[in-house]
């Protein structure tokens, strides 16, 4: 149990996907302008991360590894994720139209989101059990959510400030991201000691 909590907390705070592993920077910079879209995108990411792990983990353990097909990992995972996202979109559209309306726009963007492929590959590389892998995916998704929501707040504070001409737009956003990620460095080493 303690191990699961450590995995969850370190996925959210220490190894935050966006701010310390640099995965999923595209949506982080592209969709974080408004709080609403940041929330929608992050919920879609959490959802797809959990689904993708639930599907790719058994495929790796029961199909690829026993048959010595480990080298097919990259191809199989990206195809599974792409198909899964399509499937989820169709199912949502048919059965939960309200949810589809709020998440639908973000789903196609997630296929090429490196955070999703990243979490599925890292789960295998770290040698997690199925439960640990699911917890890690949940933590990574929550970490993404936290970073997105925090950063959309930071961005709305930047707007309307007097910024040097050449820093307008993307550069100032990146500098703000640097400061936001600086705040996450403070968590380093905290969580291991919490349970020691």
């Amino acid at each position, binding site marked *: 149990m303690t191990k699961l909590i450590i995995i969850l907390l370190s996925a959210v705070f220490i190894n935050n996907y966006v701010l310390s592993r*640099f995965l999923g920077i595209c949506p982080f910079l592209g969709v974080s302008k408004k709080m609403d879209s940041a929330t929608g995108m992050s919920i879609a990411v959490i959802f797809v991360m959990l689904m993708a792990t639930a599907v790719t983990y058994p495929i790796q353990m029961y199909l690829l590894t026993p048959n010595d097909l480990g080298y097919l990992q990259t*191809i199989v995972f990206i195809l599974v994720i792409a198909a899964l996202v399509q499937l989820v979109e169709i199912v949502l559209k048919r059965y939960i139209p309200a949810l589809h309306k709020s998440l639908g726009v973000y789903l196609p963007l997630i*296929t*090429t989101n*490196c955070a999703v492929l990243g979490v599925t590959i890292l789960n295998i590389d770290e040698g997690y059990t199925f439960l640990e892998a699911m917890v890690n995916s949940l933590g990574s998704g929550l970490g993404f959510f936290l970073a997105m929501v925090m950063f959309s707040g930071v961005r709305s504070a930047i707007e309307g400030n007097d910024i*040097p001409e050449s820093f*307008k*737009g993307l550069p100032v956003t990146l*500098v703000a991201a640097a400061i936001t990620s600086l705040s996450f460095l403070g968590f380093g080493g905290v969580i291991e000691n919490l349970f020691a």
Partner: protein
Amino acid sequence: MNTLQNFSKGIIKENPVLVLVLGTCPTLATSTSVTNAVGMGVAATAVLLCSNIVISALRKIIPDKVRIPCYIVLIAGFVTMVQMLVKAFAPALDQSLGIYLPLIVVNCIILGRAEMFANKNKVFDSAVDALGMGAGFTLALILMAAIREVFGNGSFMGMPIPVLSDNKISIMTMAPGGFFVFGCLIALVNKFSANKPKKKEFGCAGCPSAAACGKASCAEQGVTASD
């Protein structure tokens, strides 16, 4: 457009990292040392070259509707090949690039060039375009890695630099330094680019999900997407 222009546009005018702002994830993640940057740049260029050539050769065969999945499968195949080669011949590089090597699959530069260039142009032109873009990516990575390694680690390609190695600013090799250096470099490019006035936003032009992204930004402005 002649061959030389086709090649050089990737390095300066349409530099994938600093001007088109594609492939930010690997740029930020692998630019901690110059050696890593070179390794990542060469690996991505190899994949880009192969995928551009094959996609351009198959451009009349692949049906338009399923082109993106086809491209992804092709790219994933080449990435797997590169991954195996790196594992076999440069295990140290494989260790330090880690997860970012398989993640070349979802690098926007590669899908973006397939979508913007290779599926409309001849094989030779696509190969030249791939080399130019790959060189632009590698050079931008090396530039960023050089700044981060020199200040953050006080060394260049592993060789210590006299004064700086005693006064390391180790934050530069950590995550915040990556964002900061990248932001400053883009600001610098903005400053010196001739046709500047256009304020730079995050570039998704070459991304295959740009259409959906457009919808997302519509939703952002409160406009309901038509479907």
